[in-house]
């Protein structure tokens, strides 16, 4: 359930508006790596995938801005198409399995601020 309803905000970052081209490229790269990691739990095999992704980005680093923007759009489409149905979310991060489980009580200072009749007895 958690994975479907509350995807962490960082996951949606590549699609946020008002980003510079550089920001879009770097975020696309980071999310491509994360998606590859979602699909490949073995680290040794993941490294090979990561090298391939890095090579694809490096190959196009000399292109003009216009060409680069077109490639970023294509990359976003590819990222969405290959997104893992259950991406990894750390347990205590928003959307994780243990998020908000035991929310701590308000700090005791707040209790001390209350007038005596409403103050919690310790």
């Amino acid at each position, binding site marked *: 359930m958690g994975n479907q*309803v509350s995807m962490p905000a960082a996951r949606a970052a590549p699609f946020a508006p008002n980003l510079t081209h550089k920001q879009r490229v770097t975020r696309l790269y980071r999310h491509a790596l994360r998606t590859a990691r979602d699909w490949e*739990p073995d680290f040794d095999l993941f490294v090979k995938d990561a090298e391939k992704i890095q090579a694809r980005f490096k190959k196009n680093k000399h292109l003009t801005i216009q060409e680069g923007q077109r490639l970023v759009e294509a990359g976003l489409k590819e990222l969405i198409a290959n997104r*893992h149905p259950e991406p*990894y979310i750390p347990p205590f991060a928003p959307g994780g*399995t243990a998020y908000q489980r035991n929310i701590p009580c308000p700090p005791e200072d707040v209790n001390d601020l209350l007038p005596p009749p409403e103050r919690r007895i310790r």
Partner: protein
Amino acid sequence: MVVGGVMMPIIGGVIGLVMGRKIGGEGSSKLNIRSMRVSVVMISMELYEVVINGVKKEVKIWEWMREGVERVECGVIEEREVVEMMWMVVVVGSIVEEYSRWYMKGEGERVRFMSIVSIFIGSMLILVGSENMLQMYIGWEGIGICSYILISYWSSRRETGKAGMKAMVINRIGDMGIMLGIGKGYVSYGSVSYGVMKSVVIEEDRIMGIMIIMGVMTKSSQMGMQTWLSDAMEGPTPVSALIHAATLVTAGVYVVVRMEGIIGGKEIMIGIGGGSIVYIGMLGVYAQDIKKIIAYSTGSQLGYMVLSVGVESSNNSISHVVNHGMVKGMLFMSAGGIIHSRKEEQDIRKMGGGVMSVSKMGVIIGSMGIMGIEYSSVYESKEEIIRESSMSRYGEISSELGVCITSYYSIRMIKRVVVSEGKKRKEEEEEEGMKRSIMWMSIIGVVIGYMKREWEREEWEEEIGIKEKGMMIIGIVMGIWKEKIKERRIGRWIGKKWYNEVWQNRWIGGKVEEIGREIVEGIDRKILEECGRKGSREVMSGVERVVRRRGNVSKYGIGMVIGIIMWGWSCG
């Protein structure tokens, strides 16, 4: 004796709740564990009487209601299947309570947790031991409400609240089916007692069957209705071990077994059971959360049980319920041990590595049991079901496919959790009590399987066994060789859980919401308000205006006196 066994968990739970402030979390845990142990001893003695000595009796406590010649009596029926099932429920319940004592250490509201678990077990025993459908329905509702409370135990978390509500709402559909089924039974046979209905039945009632199957589909999370079971994994792991493996989900199957010979619709059961084996099993192939994988496995195994009832082999169904409950409870507890030791990490991609622990051994033994490897406890009952389902071509294909799928996700889970290197993270050792519980459960599971084993087989039975083993080997090889299914189309369908929730929300949830809105707008706001609150206010203010204009106090006094006299006269 058996009545004491049924009532002890409830008594323990209620005392725990009432005295909770005084005895605290630890005291409540000890109280509930002891009451469960007493219950285990009592029901074990009854099991000896019924299974070994072959005694068959019915204990009546009181007459609940009487309608003509029909009497509804509360009590416990003692038949082989009933007592076996009760024994499984109390044994798993007792071990899970012991496990919870250690697992829930450090969590808040332990008094509530332990007591509700006990009350849940008591409700389940009421359901299992009942001789009539009305008493069964009390237990049915009892387990429903306790399951809601336990799923949403971490009430500060939004997802748990949603999961609890989802379980409740989906199960309501089935509850309605069961209620209608009870009514239909009473109208058709003039009784709600299983025994009386079986004695007067001439032809199996198909309509009643469809109503009861509605209940089975939701409670036992069959094809299309399984969404609540995976979401219910939001609850603590002991809850998953007890409720979503051994007891609550098996209630639907148990009820339909009890009503064998009364209700019709066997072909629907074959369709649903066979479909669920493959449909829900495939979801386990893609799941990454260890608890969800086990939950989908439960749904798939429940499909075997429903299929077994469909092919008129209820004994095997109950046998599979008992064996599966033991093994699946142990599997969940082992998963809980691993989650605990890895600081709440549930994703199998981040597991693996570290030293071999009792929990990991539990995962291996449990997974092999679920796969149906020979000499495991589930093997015997599962093979019996596959053998019986070979009478129907559809049943045979789906059950054989189910073996392959089960092997695939079980091997995948073992590989990720135990074999793979994983992320190097320091694992904490499990608590002694948790280790003890897992070991007890695995010993009981294996011993029961061994005791129930049939050593001699016929030739045609051997043939089906070979086919099953072949499918299992295919599943194992695929699980080792091709663990990640990345193919676009099938991956998207299964990864999105067959788009089950999407169509449910769009076609059912959306429509119901639309109808509800129309009722609120059309009936509540327009008709009821115009005739009720708003209308009566306008009428009264109109009367008031007229009276005020004429203004005569003595006339009001006379009117009041006449009104009182008339009221007194009408009261008589």
